[in-house]
């Protein structure tokens, strides 16, 4: 008989709730009549994400002492719980955005099922405590996302996006797996703390195999976080995927990839900090440069936001590279408004796409601020937030990131970050300029035949609710810094800095 480890089911509750929601949604795809699948699927996914959110908070409250569960494969701590809450929150908003999308009924229940499954994988990944669970969680949510990207077969570029993501994502996973194998080969251990223990016990700090494995791990996670130079897939996939999927990916995938990067590096490789801090700082600089400069010349809003997300990966990597509790706090704080702004901004793009029945370019935004006041103002605030201007959490997030870099002794990194912010302003303000300062009469659609019905499209209320919630988080995180930072401090304290 194989001995089974004790399972702390409560620690796995967010994943389990989401898996259950996914299964129920999938059952609906078979058992329910076609016309009710959309409502049912969306409801299941929403309940799943809401349940995961609540459980993540309960776990946060009840896990002041970090410890491994399920034979140490998974770690139950506040760091993971806070990340799960961010993922679940962005998932919930993404459901609202998806519900408003003009999607065919054919695979609608499967869509929500996959969304919940991806969320479950992400919630699992952020608690991963050894190289096996890391890879398992990563593939779990990636496979769900590959399908989600390609699910809308009628959408131009959707299949291409799915295929591109599959191939490049698969390559990234392979690199990660190879890196894990090298680390295992060097240390003989899988669990993160034991790797750290083996490195110090066998004084492997300069071991070539270990360092190569570490580099490949960072590269593999860099693919998921879409940090330059591993970012090539990002603009194409973000552009081609259905916009609600992009909204979810840009927020949640980045959260889990960056959070996990911090966890792995701090827990498993503290002795290599002299290497990975520098490597991450270099990746951060590359991401800031490439993301911001490429975004300058984009005319399609989704591509612009994709490059902007690359540059934000750069900002957050600065926080990780500081290798300090302040850096951890900065990352966790930054992720909250960032996730809200990402979902919100893509939601506004989705709304505009529906109105125009065409991909949205900057010119297509002309006059939108006046026609749709809530969406326009929200988009404006999201852009301010991305640009790091008050009154948004984006400003405080950047402040913390720069503070972490400064405390680490890297004033030059602060200056790089500020320069990148300056460049970013140009294209973020271009979005506002397009929305408010150009009359809609300038709008040259040339697509009069497109089915553009007047008035507010059906189910628009949920999209607007999602956008309003994202707006609330973006602005609220500016005023309520102290409570959020306290939460982030306790979360970061569960890592062994």
């Amino acid at each position: 008989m194989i001995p089974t480890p004790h399972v702390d089911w409560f620690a796995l509750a967010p994943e389990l709730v989401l898996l259950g929601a996914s299964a129920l949604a999938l059952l609906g795809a078979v058992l329910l009549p076609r016309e009710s699948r959309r409502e049912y699927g969306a409801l299941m996914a929403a309940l799943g994400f809401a349940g995961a959110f609540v459980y993540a908070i309960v776990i946060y409250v009840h896990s002041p002492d970090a410890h491994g569960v399920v034979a140490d494969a998974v770690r139950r701590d506040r760091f993971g719980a806070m990340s799960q809450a961010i993922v679940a929150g962005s998932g919930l908003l993404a459901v609202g955005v998806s519900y408003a999308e003009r999607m065919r009924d054919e695979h609608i229940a499967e869509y929500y099922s996959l969304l919940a499954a991806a969320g479950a994988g992400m919630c699992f990944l952020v608690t991963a405590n050894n190289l096996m669970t890391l890879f398992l969680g990563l593939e779990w949510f990636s496979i769900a996302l590959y399908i989600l990207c390609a699910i809308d077969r009628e959408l131009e570029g959707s299949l291409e996006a799915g295929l591109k993501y599959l191939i490049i994502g698969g390559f990234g996973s392979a690199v990660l797996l190879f890196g894990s194998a090298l680390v295992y080969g060097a240390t003989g251990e899988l669990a993160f703390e034991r790797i750290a223990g083996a490195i110090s016990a066998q004084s492997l700090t300069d071991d070539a195999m270990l360092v190569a494995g570490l580099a490949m791990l960072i590269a593999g996670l860099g693919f998921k976080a879409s940090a330059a130079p591993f970012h090539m897939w990002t603009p194409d996939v973000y552009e081609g995927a259905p916009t609600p999927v992009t909204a979810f990916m840009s927020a949640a995938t980045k959260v889990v990839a960056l959070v996990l990067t911090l966890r792995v590096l701090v827990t498993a490789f503290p002795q290599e900090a002299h290497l990975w801090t520098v490597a991450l700082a270099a990746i951060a600089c590359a991401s800031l440069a490439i993301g911001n400069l490429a975004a300058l010349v984009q005319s399609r809003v989704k591509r612009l936001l994709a490059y902007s997300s690359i540059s934000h990966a750069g900002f957050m990597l600065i926080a990780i590279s500081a290798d300090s509790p302040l850096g951890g706090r900065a990352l966790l704080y930054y992720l909250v408004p960032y996730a809200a702004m990402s979902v919100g901004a893509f939601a506004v793009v989705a709304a505009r796409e529906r109105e125009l029945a065409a991909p949205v370019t900057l010119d297509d935004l002309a006059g939108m601020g006046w026609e749709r006041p809530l969406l326009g103002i929200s988009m404006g605030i999201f852009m301010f937030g991305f640009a790091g201007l008050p009154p948004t959490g984006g400003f405080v997030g950047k402040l913390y990131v720069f503070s972490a870099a400064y405390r680490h002794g890297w004033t030059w990194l602060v200056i790089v970050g500020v320069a990148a912010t300056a460049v970013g302003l140009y294209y973020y303000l271009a979005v506002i300029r397009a929305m408010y300062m150009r009359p809609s009469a300038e709008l040259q659609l040339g697509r009069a035949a497109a089915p553009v019905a007047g008035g507010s499209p059906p189910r628009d209320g949920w999209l607007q609710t999602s956008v309003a919630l994202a707006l609330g988080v973006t602005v609220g995180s500016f005023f309520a810094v102290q409570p959020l930072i306290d939460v982030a401090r306790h979360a970061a304290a569960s890592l062994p800095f």
Partner: protein
Amino acid sequence: MGWLTTAMILLPVGGALLVWLIPWDSFTAGAIALLVALAEVGLWIESLIRFDFGRGGLQLDQKTSWFSDLDVSYHVGLYGFSLWLVGLTVVVMAAAIAYAFWAGRSGSRAYFGLMLLLTGAVVGVFAAQDLLLFYVFWEAMLLPLYVLIGVWGGAGRLGATIKFVIYTMAGSLLMLAAVIVLGLSQGTFDLAAAWQSSSDWLFLGFVAAFAVKAPLFPFHGWLPDAYRESPPEVAAVLSGVVSKAAIYGFIRIAIAKFPEPTRDFRTVILVLAAIGLVYGSLLAFRAPDLRGVIAYSSLAQLGLITFGVFAVNDLGLDGAVLQMVNHGLISAALFLLAGGIERRAATGEFARLGGFARGRPMLATLLMTTGVIALAVPGSSAFAGEFAILAGVFRVGWGYALVGAIAIVLAAMYTLRLISAVLHERPGPSVTPEALDLRPAELGVLVPLVACLLALSVWPAAITERSFTNDRAGNDVRAQFEASR
């Protein structure tokens, strides 16, 4: 009594939300904005009464922790000289909102909300006693301006806003880097705490932001376009109030917190101010249109005020504060008058204007009075301010005083040229007999501004004797001056 300062910041912000969130018709939106702006003036008068000028130091202050791990707090309060600048702000903003209410603006809820937000942000800049809070209000001041110019501006507004944003944001972000490094290296972001820094780089970071916003030569590239393309009342606010925030920053942060770098860079800044003064005056003399003259004269006047500030002595600083208020009122009145003239003639070009005085006594009187005060005729408040500045800067070097005196002669030239080109000479092709004299509503906006100027002409000591006396900021500044002599 700290609630009074907070109320002056929050009242307009609350007013903005009120205007935005409820679908008022455009008249009600404008009326609400005007009422809030007038209530703001009332709050300021209340704080003027409660302010103890004999005591000096930070008053009406309030401090609440914002986030403690970096020691950032919501800390607001007023010094004597900042109280006067807040007064300038609320008066000019009330006039600007009243003018816009009368002139009518499309999308009025958005417009008046932004104007109110701008009011709160500028008051916040003058009241903030925390570096990060200062930066937040500083940015909050730029964003409404960006939209106000970009949406309601003239034909060339897009180009003007891009220039405006690039210049000001480049400056602000340098300041952000300086704020972060300074706050973290001091361990606190509190401005009222007793610390000073000797870092040249941080000093230059702050100076960059302030020099762009003021503007100082050679950072004035955004100025002519922004002033020409804005709606007149926004131009009035931009040159009357927002530029003063930069000078305030020079006094409150650059000089008070960086005594050694101030000493090292004083000559450079004074020389730049001198160049701006003469260059701005010459450009104003050559400008072909009303707004051009006012815009470049603004550049010149801010050069003069910078003289007073970087003289870093009692006379210079007192004169600078008085002149800030003077120039704020003068340029606001002039821009609003220019707006009125442009409404009547559909152009601001001198070649097409002239003869406005005939049959329009109110317009002629107000433009003449403002112009005469602007050119610092003896007995006017501007004379008092400029005299104090020149006397102050004379102690630093007679050359600066000489340049300043020459510039005052140039100011007389460009102001008289403006007056004669608009009011006198033969009627221009765009001036028709149908163009009416100022309407009662316009008088209601302009007469209080000019009345403030006349009152200050009678009693300039109201400001000069109540800005720095026994004041901690003044002591900081003065102690620094004693050391540098």
